[in-house]
């Protein structure tokens, strides 16, 4: 069993804001992340799949194909976008890094070939803050 990781990146705006709460309560809980005019990050995305290398190719999966699937399913939807407004799969969700990594996992599992086993998605919001999700 080998783990294979592809790294991609995207830049996006967002805010942490619960529409069910008052502005004061949002500022109390989310601090400056609740700024109504947004702020933004350079996100770094690590997608790890696992499997046995194929006898003929030596690959678990063609990394070029993996990159294209990540770009099409995730990066094109998120890069240079507003996560709260522009992204269909984040509609109605709080745009925390935790929720984003779960949503990315769900998107990837629907776009990757059935034979490919997703192991982990790691998402850096800043060089100092990251989350990991293993599908459960």
């Amino acid at each position, binding site marked *: 069993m080998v783990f294979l990781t592809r790294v991609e990146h995207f830049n996006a*705006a967002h805010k942490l804001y619960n529409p069910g709460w008052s502005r004061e309560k949002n500022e109390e809980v989310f601090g400056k992340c609740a700024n109504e*005019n*947004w702020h*933004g990050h*350079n996100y770094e995305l690590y997608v790890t799949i696992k499997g046995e290398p194929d006898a003929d190719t030596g690959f678990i999966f063609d990394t070029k194909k993996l990159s294209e699937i990540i770009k099409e399913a995730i990066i094109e939807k998120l890069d240079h976008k507003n996560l709260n407004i*522009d992204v269909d799969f984040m509609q109605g969700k709080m745009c925390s890094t935790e929720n984003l990594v779960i949503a990315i996992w769900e998107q990837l599992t629907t776009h990757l070939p059935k034979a490919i086993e997703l192991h982990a998605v790691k998402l850096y919001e*800043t060089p100092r803050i990251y989350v990991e999700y293993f599908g459960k």
Partner: protein
Amino acid sequence: MNKVSVFRREHFNAAHRLYNPKWDDAKNFEVFGKCSNPHYHGHNYELEIKVTGEPDAETGYVMDLKKLSDLVKENVLNEFDHKNLNLDTKYFTNLNPTAENIVIVIYGILRKKIEEKFDLKIRLYETDRNFVEYPID
């Protein structure tokens, strides 16, 4: 003359968009591409402040880096961190917030706060791969 350069790194996270109000949306998209998204996008900006001068005879410091850090926090980070550069700061009301213009603005802010005897240079990373420096040698 025993000049030494001292550096302080800081960072801020902000939203922005590149947009020229004299152009229509199509022309803005043609020139700035996805950076002109009307709903903004954002970056983790990394800032490097370089101060050059002679170490002081009594302290051995060119400049106390804690004081430099406080200056940057008070005058730059408080204005830019977790803000929308286009909407929330006074500097980019009529100026496109490209990395080039941001670095010139930050230099202008800090130059007034740091003694004239010191040379000042600012480097600003918009991403790991894109960065700018001002002034040039």
